[in-house]
């Protein structure tokens, strides 16, 4: 067993993927000598050289666009977008080119590109550094979108993402980068990339979350036991495709679902989960699906972000609404 933070787990996963496949490249702004602004790529350039780990010009469209070319040439680029809010200059290349290349080539072309995006708030940052843009990508056919919530998942999911022949948007919960846990680096992963998992069992209501909100929901579940409430927590892990079978199974037992994410509410991942659960579990539901999310505003200044972001109290408030319906 090894105790690693999420950031170090991704680093270890990248290292292992690069060892396993000489075609894996790491590219982005400051990923080389600096090792990334969050040090996720720390030491990789030193160990794998400047051909495989390289600092790019400061241009996100260029990072994604050239990764497409590298992928067409047989490489497996892992692109780092420095912060969530800076993905948008590369957005056109992602949604118009990366997402559609396999489709429009009739399956002849594959783009095994992983786009790593540190995302989410709660770190007291200035604007464009705390956003949750996953919905834009999950809405785009051709992209697979995942988010890790634990060191073990970070370690395995980054390797599975790199091994995927479909392009993966890999959302990293930046405020959880330094959360540490023990896991076995050599034990094979128990789940494929695009699968969700129950992380706490319970019987009164179900919480579904991903990325940074998984920890919040686990804390809420612990707190709820004081009131004699038993909450099941599901880490969705994959946002596109969604893997909702564990959610359906859970809701059929609990009858109540609260979906939690930092991203804005309207047309967010929670909306899709609510719609599908309503379709699949209509007769099991004892209450409408509750969404506990960021509000429908731009991400606010840091001094009010704690009121914008779902926290333990807001999650429990959502549970209360579901239970008292």
């Amino acid at each position, binding site marked *: 067993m090894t105790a690693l933070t999420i950031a170090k787990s991704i680093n270890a996963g990248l290292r292992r993927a690069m060892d396993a496949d000489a075609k894996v490249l790491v590219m982005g*702004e*400051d990923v*080389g*000598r*600096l*090792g990334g*602004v969050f040090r996720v790529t720390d030491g990789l350039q030193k160990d794998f050289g*400047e*051909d495989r780990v*390289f*600092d*790019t*010009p*400061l*241009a996100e*469209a*260029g990072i994604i666009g050239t990764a497409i070319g590298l992928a067409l040439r047989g490489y497996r680029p892992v692109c780092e977008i420095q912060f969530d*809010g*800076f993905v*948008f*200059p590369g957005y056109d290349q992602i949604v118009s080119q990366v997402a559609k290349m396999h489709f429009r080539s009739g399956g002849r072309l594959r783009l095994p590109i992983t786009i790593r995006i540190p995302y989410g708030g709660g770190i*007291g*940052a*200035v*604007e*464009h550094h705390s956003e949750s843009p996953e919905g834009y990508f999950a809405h785009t056919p051709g992209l697979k979108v995942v988010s890790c919530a634990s060191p073990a998942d970070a370690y395995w999911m980054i390797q599975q993402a790199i091994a995927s022949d479909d392009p993966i948007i890999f959302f990293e919960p930046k405020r959880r980068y330094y959360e540490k846990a023990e896991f076995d680096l050599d034990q094979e992963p128990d789940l494929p990339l695009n699968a969700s998992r129950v992380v706490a069992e319970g019987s009164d209501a179900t919480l579904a979350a991903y990325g940074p909100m998984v920890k919040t929901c686990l804390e809420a579940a612990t707190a709820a036991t004081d009131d004699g409430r038993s909450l099941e927590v599901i880490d969705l892990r994959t946002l596109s495709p969604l893997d909702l079978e564990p959610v359906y199974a859970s809701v059929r037992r609990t009858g109540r679902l609260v979906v939690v994410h930092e991203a804005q*509410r309207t047309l967010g991942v929670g909306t899709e989960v609510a719609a599908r659960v309503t379709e699949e579990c209509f007769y099991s539901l004892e209450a409408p699906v509750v969404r506990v999310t960021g*509000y*429908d*505003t*731009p991400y*606010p*200044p*840091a*001094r*009010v*972000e704690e*009121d*914008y972001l779902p926290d333990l109290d*807001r999650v429990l*408030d959502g549970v209360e609404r579901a239970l008292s319906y």
Partner: protein
Amino acid sequence: MTVDTAVTSASGTAADTELVQLLTPEGERVPHEHYDTLIDDITADEIRDLYRDLTMSRRIDSEAIALQRQGELGLWASLLGQEAAQVGSARALRPQDHVFPTYREHGVAWCRGVDPAQLLGLFRGVDQGSWDPKENNFHLYTIVIGAQTLHATGYAMGVQRDGAIGTGDPERDAAVLAYFGDGATSQGDVNEAFIWAGVNNAPVVFFCQNNQWAISEPLERQTRVPLYRRAHGFGFPGLRVDGNDVLACLAVSREALQRARDGEGPSLIEAFTYRMGAHTTSDDASRYRLDSELESWRLKDPVERVKAYMTREKMADQAFFDGVEAEAEQLAEHLRTTCRSMPDPHPTTIFDHVYVDTPPTLRAQQEEMARYLDSFVDEKEAQ
């Protein structure tokens, strides 16, 4: 394959390029056949004013760094080393000109008359730009790299359509000044801004503070040629100026801005300078650059060279320097006091300016938040 990063022509030095310099690092005035004519009206009083601007800009910066260390600000992007580039260019502006800054143009804000305490809100996390851009023709800070160069170009196209160029009226003809850094020159937005400005002959001056570093990436990661030379490919003039020389920055900016006001189109100024601090207070520059480089630039300090010049030319005595110092301390005190008393916004205000015409659905969310927050007040009262 290894990329050859030893492209000296991209970074260059004062010696090996056509760099406009009017004041040496030692504070000696260097005659220049052309650019002397652009500043020959400068009086000793105005030199003293420039020195004051440089000192105040530096003091704003050092106080903000201190406030960040004390936890009063979440972040600060230091301008240390870039004072002359900012003051020299900004003092070439007229009131009707318009400025589009990045997030580091604290010295430009000062010259435009923005209360520097207002710059702190964004970094404290209480707002995202509290000054009225229309008041001083100084736009909000832009953090997404290079985006503002297109805004500046569009604004200049508006100036053009308003007939506010080429009339010869010094109070009417206007120019637009767009700031950005060396890293930004790689962005598509910046290259598109060059194209749009070029084909429209827009009255915009692109002022690139080449401080040599985009966080950890040296200039060689962005370019194989000196940045100013790119302008020619886009169809307008470009030049490199000593960015640590306030007189030279003033001279070249005056010329470029007047060219824009006269309807002669855009230009690119590459102010060759150095980021003496880290990228921001979150960055640790010792991880990627050498102290020796920093030391060599310390000898080119933009404030010290003006002080040396003034002393040499007997434009100022110790009493003057002491007076400016005292004024800078007063400004620092103003920043401290104002910053510490900046209240956190009420959470429900985040809904206020999402739209001009707020939809009822969003008002409902605002009320939902208010009810939720009130439920805690009730709990407290009940206890």
